[in-house]
């Protein structure tokens, strides 16, 4: 469905060109869940932003269902079926949770919005009319962000570290929902950027980034055994050895 061909992205810094993504080739197929992992700064979020059209790639091509979409802007790509759940969603003063979900999916009726809220662990009574300004916690913002992308029924949904700031109970439920919607779905695919060792093994395909390049790519069965120890180690470093998911 989505095909990235020799894709590169560079930025200019003090007259010097720095490549953030280097010659990426990737084929995303419908019905599959893709786990994207790798160290911080390896280019994962940049890749997501380039696919969404937020950052313009400097070389290569992006095809969606055979059509080159490199020249399309964010809105056009959104309307073609690409959705992106931000790592750090922005806040909006005066816009309610309900308003934002209705922008994401104007066809949704109130009853469906309430169901979607419960799916991500938010009580509709408490959150429907909550302001998207400064009153919500990071974890709440994240759940609302994921809910919007789920509501869009996108062809390709990209989740950027969906687990960050979300409690254990909710993340398990979110994972179940994402798996339920995207695994074996003949219409859609999902790309999950994550370090989470509970999410990565349930993906169909794994892509490991390093310094702007794809270091490893293949089925979960092939790749997971090769990176499992790195992932566990990395997590344990950040949590000082305490067991977290």
């Amino acid at each position, binding site marked *: 469905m989505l095909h990235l061909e020799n894709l590169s992205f560079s930025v200019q810094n003090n007259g010097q060109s720095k490549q953030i993504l280097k010659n990426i080739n990737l084929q995303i197929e419908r019905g599959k869940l893709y786990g994207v992992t790798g160290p911080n700064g390896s280019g994962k979020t940049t890749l997501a932003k380039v696919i969404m059209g937020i950052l313009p790639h400097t070389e290569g091509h992006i095809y969606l269902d055979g059509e080159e979409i490199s020249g399309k802007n*964010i809105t056009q790509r*959104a*309307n073609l079926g690409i*959705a992106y759940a931000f790592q750090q969603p922005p806040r*909006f003063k*005066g*816009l309610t949770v309900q308003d934002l979900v209705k922008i*994401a999916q104007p066809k949704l009726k109130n009853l469906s919005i309430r169901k979607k809220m419960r799916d991500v662990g938010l009580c509709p009574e408490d959150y429907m009319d909550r302001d998207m300004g400064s009153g919500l916690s990071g974890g709440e913002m994240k759940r609302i962000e994921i809910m919007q992308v789920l509501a*869009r029924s996108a062809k390709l949904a990209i989740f950027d570290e969906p687990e960050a700031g979300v409690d254990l109970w909710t993340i398990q439920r979110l994972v179940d929902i994402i798996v339920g919607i995207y695994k074996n779905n003949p219409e859609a695919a999902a790309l999950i950027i994550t370090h989470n060792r509970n999410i990565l093994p349930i993906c169909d395909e794994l892509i490991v980034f390093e310094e702007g390049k794809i270091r490893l790519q293949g089925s979960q069965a092939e790749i997971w055994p090769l990176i499992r120890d790195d992932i566990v180690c990395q997590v344990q470093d950040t949590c000082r050895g305490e067991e977290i998911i």
Partner: protein
Amino acid sequence: MKLNKLDKNLLNTISDIDHIPAGAINIRKDGKPVLRQSSPNILITTGETGGLIVEIKPGTKNETVHVPVIITKTGLNDVVYNQFIVGENADVTIVAGCGIHNDSHGKSRHEGLHEIIVKEGAHLRYVEKHYGEGSGTGQKVLYPTTKIIVEKNAYAEIESVQIKGVDDTVRITEAYIHEKAILKVIERLLTHGNQYAESDIKIFIEGKGGSGQILSRSVAKGNSSQIFRAALVGQNECLGHVECDSIIMDKATIKAVPELIAEDSEAVLTHEAAIGKIAGEQLIKLMSLGLTEDEAVDTILESFLK
């Protein structure tokens, strides 16, 4: 009484009424009253200066009084002095507001002085919308002044809104808060083109346990300019907070001057002021949900001023 379609549109915009409501109402058109009706609890009479005296009986509950002003004649300089007395323990809403239609090149101006007394234990919501329209280059000018006294244990909320079409406005609000009384002043303002808007709010919190709050949200577009001054004077053990938040666009200018004056060591006064353009992340987020850039800007501004 004659109200044409244009009058009705203006009325609808400033007071959300598309027909004459039951209850107390006074419509002033081009400097003259064209409709007046009192209700059993709300008495509207003419004062010595020719303005209104609106007396709300003590204990009146859940009633609304509409006192809109519309101006459709060019060159008119309409000055009015109105008085509102909200009786003890009443709970009412006053919907004021001024709409100007000016198709010519001459200036239309309205200067409204409103004096409001909210008696002990009463609860008031006062809404004032300002709006201008018309095809000519004639300026639509509004100079409203509101003076309000909030007596012991009373609560008042002043909400003033100016979203469109007023070329020049200087709004002055002066308030006196007594013991355990609360006043909340909410302003929402959008200026565009070459418009100028100034708001000058001064709240004196005189009584022990009094509380005053000023919340301002504004958007300045085009070449417009805004000045916002908000002063809280704490003269007793009290709480006061000023919050002004503005979005600036194009070549507009905004000046925000929050001022806190404590005259008692038990006064707790705070302020927050922020001016900034629309965050790029907000636009990108909404565009990633399928909105165009223009739709995203409109959505952000509309919700910000909601």
